[in-house]
């Protein structure tokens, strides 16, 4: 715990606070004040905490990141941005944590649904926001949540009413352009009963050091179906902390595809609360090169009977990169007939790469089916030979198998444009000699 840096942030807070949204909302002011207090007391997490054992965040304590001001759409390279904008999607763009109407594409939305910036939501439907903000993400749990709650500048707000099936996905395009900036964004996504919605979070940044601290709270109503995609491609000097906190109602379905590619230090927390007979599927792929440190933390709470959870995280680590996976599955006393399967597979491409994997099952019910498996290893030599026997040279065979290992997760993406974008990211990070993109 380092509270010295926390007090420096706290000392700056009064000069920043007036520009934060929701000034006229007493409930939010109270919430932010409490969060500031919590963060000041805790500081950023320390490796002494069990949940942060493998991830030392002291790097971010070396400097003070400040909210960016005054950047406009004109500061963003339109060509660069284009590569990350999905066709056929509603797109909400945040630049350095602030909504840019100019860069966003929100026209033609069905009347009944809300897709807007958090700042707009706090103006036009503050009661709805009050009802949900902080409901899924517990800020006492994690000082980054407290940090985010105190400092958030904007975010994405989505509300899909009951029975509405959204035919186009919603993309949150999160860009950081400013050096030493902090982008603190708070997102809320609500899918009411029987609604169907797909949301894509894309995190990108230019080549600077900066800090992203994003919290997304998701509410999946009874029998609703929500898919969340996350593509984290921050700059190679960036710090990324992203938390997704999901509450599922009875019979709700939630699917997450979590791609962690960028950042010097990147950490994602995914917490899911499962109600009666709900289902969640958590898929993840992390690729680390150079000195990257990529940490994924998942927690699945089976609170009620008959829920199903499926989890598969895969990591490919090269150079001196380090990957961390901590997956907890907690089955409450009441959650009989739980069906849960968790897997983590790691492929190490260099002797200096490292993977730390820690699956944890905490089972308090007695009639459950829970399994888990982890592997850390190199490419399978039998497979290398099989490809060689099919005329492929050894180097290409190794590249193909590495790619294939990752591609299993990419292949799960059925939104064409997103699939191709993620594929590009994967190919750009690993040796491609002999891997023919055109044939995939």
């Amino acid at each position, binding site marked *: 715990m380092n509270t010295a840096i926390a007090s420096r942030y706290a000392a700056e807070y009064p000069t920043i606070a007036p520009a934060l949204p929701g000034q006229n909302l007493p409930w939010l002011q109270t919430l932010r004040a409490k969060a500031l207090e919590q963060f000041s007391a805790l500081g950023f997490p320390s490796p002494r905490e069990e949940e942060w054992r493998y991830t030392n965040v002291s790097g971010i304590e070396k400097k003070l990141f400040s909210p960016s001001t005054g950047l406009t759409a004109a500061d963003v390279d339109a060509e660069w941005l284009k590569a990350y904008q999905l066709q056929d999607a509603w797109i909400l763009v945040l630049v350095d944590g602030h909504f840019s109407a100019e860069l966003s594409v929100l026209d033609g939305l069905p009347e009944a649904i809300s897709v807007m910036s958090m700042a707009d939501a706090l103006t036009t439907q503050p009661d709805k926001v009050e009802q949900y903000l902080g409901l899924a993400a517990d800020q006492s749990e994690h000082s980054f949540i407290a940090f985010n709650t105190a400092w958030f500048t904007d975010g994405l707000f989505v509300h899909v009413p009951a029975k509405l099936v959204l035919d186009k996905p919603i993309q949150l395009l999160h860009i950081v352009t400013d050096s030493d900036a902090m982008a603190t964004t708070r997102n809320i996504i609500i899918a009411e009963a029987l609604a169907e919605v797909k949301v894509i979070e894309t995190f990108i940044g230019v080549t600077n050091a900066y800090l992203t601290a994003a919290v997304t709270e998701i509410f999946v109503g009874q029998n609703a179906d929500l898919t969340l995609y996350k593509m984290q491609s921050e700059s190679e000097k960036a710090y990324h902390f992203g938390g997704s906190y999901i509450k599922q109602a009875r019979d709700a379905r939630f699917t997450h595809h979590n791609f962690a590619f960028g950042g010097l230090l990147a950490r994602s927390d995914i917490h899911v609360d499962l109600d009666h007979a709900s289902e969640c599927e958590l898929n993840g792929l992390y690729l680390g090169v150079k000195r990257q440190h990529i940490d994924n933390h998942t927690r699945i709470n089976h609170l009620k009977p008959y829920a199903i959870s499926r989890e598969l995280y895969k990591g490919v680590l090269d150079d001196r990169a380090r990957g961390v996976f901590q997956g907890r599955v907690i089955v409450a006393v009441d959650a009989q007939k739980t069906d849960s399967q968790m897997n983590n597979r790691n492929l190490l491409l260099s002797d200096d790469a490292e993977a730390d994997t820690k699956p944890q099952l905490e089972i308090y019910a007695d009639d459950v089916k829970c399994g888990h498996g982890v592997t850390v290893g190199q490419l399978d030599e039998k497979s290398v030979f*099989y490809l*060689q*026997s*099919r*005329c492929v040279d050894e180097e290409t065979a190794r590249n193909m198998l590495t790619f*294939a290992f990752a*591609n*299993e997760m990419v292949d799960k993406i059925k939104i064409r444009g997103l699939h191709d974008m993620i594929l590009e990211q994967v190919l750009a990070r690993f040796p491609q000699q002999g891997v*023919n993109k055109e044939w995939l």
Partner: protein
Amino acid sequence: MLSIKNLTVNVNDKQILKGINLEIKAGEIHAIMGPNGSGKSTLSHVLSGKGGYTVTGGSATYQGKDLLEMAPEIRAREGVFLAFQYPVEIPGVSNIYLLKAALNSIRKHNGQPEVDAMDFLMLVKEKVRLLEMDEKFLYRAVNEGFSGGEKKRNEILQMAILEPKLCIMDETDSGLDIDALKIVSEGVNSLRSPERSFVMVTHYQRLLDYIKPDKVHVLAHGQIVKSGGADLALELEEKGYSWVEEAAA
């Protein structure tokens, strides 16, 4: 086509092949039969260049070249094809991708341009029909989740598309039901030509009812203990292996 002389092979310092001699001419089909553990897969693997085997003596000459000197992928490009006893599952690589990569590697090796996309698709679909497979298999990951029989059929599909000169089939018949066995055999028979040779490793006579060999060899304890014509297989079926093993001992 293939000339094996006095080939001895060790695995982990244990001698597995103890002096194999075999002459296979272009256009011939040779069956290698023998009990489990006699070294049939070892021979198939050594010929295709799998690691983990030490050749301690002898030679294998393929089309006048030293086969054992070549990297596995060079052997494959030169026309040696191994249909595996246990085909490997490769999640994330589609069948069609691998076929294209393989076929183009061969063409490049022979100084030919990449195959035209349309021609390739036509060729592949024709062979898929020949083996009575579902076209969907092409787009599935190599062998992933395939049944034992489907894997074997997929090996033969690859063989039919790559048109090798020396086809080594390691227990292709195991795991196939009678209908699949007929289809696979027809596929193999359609590939017979005066320029192509086959080594069929098998345990049972069954496959040889459909693909008639020119020569049959019995491998026991790492040695060919008896060679003969197609009739030898029938005799083995009737009497089992013990009599040849005993006769050789």
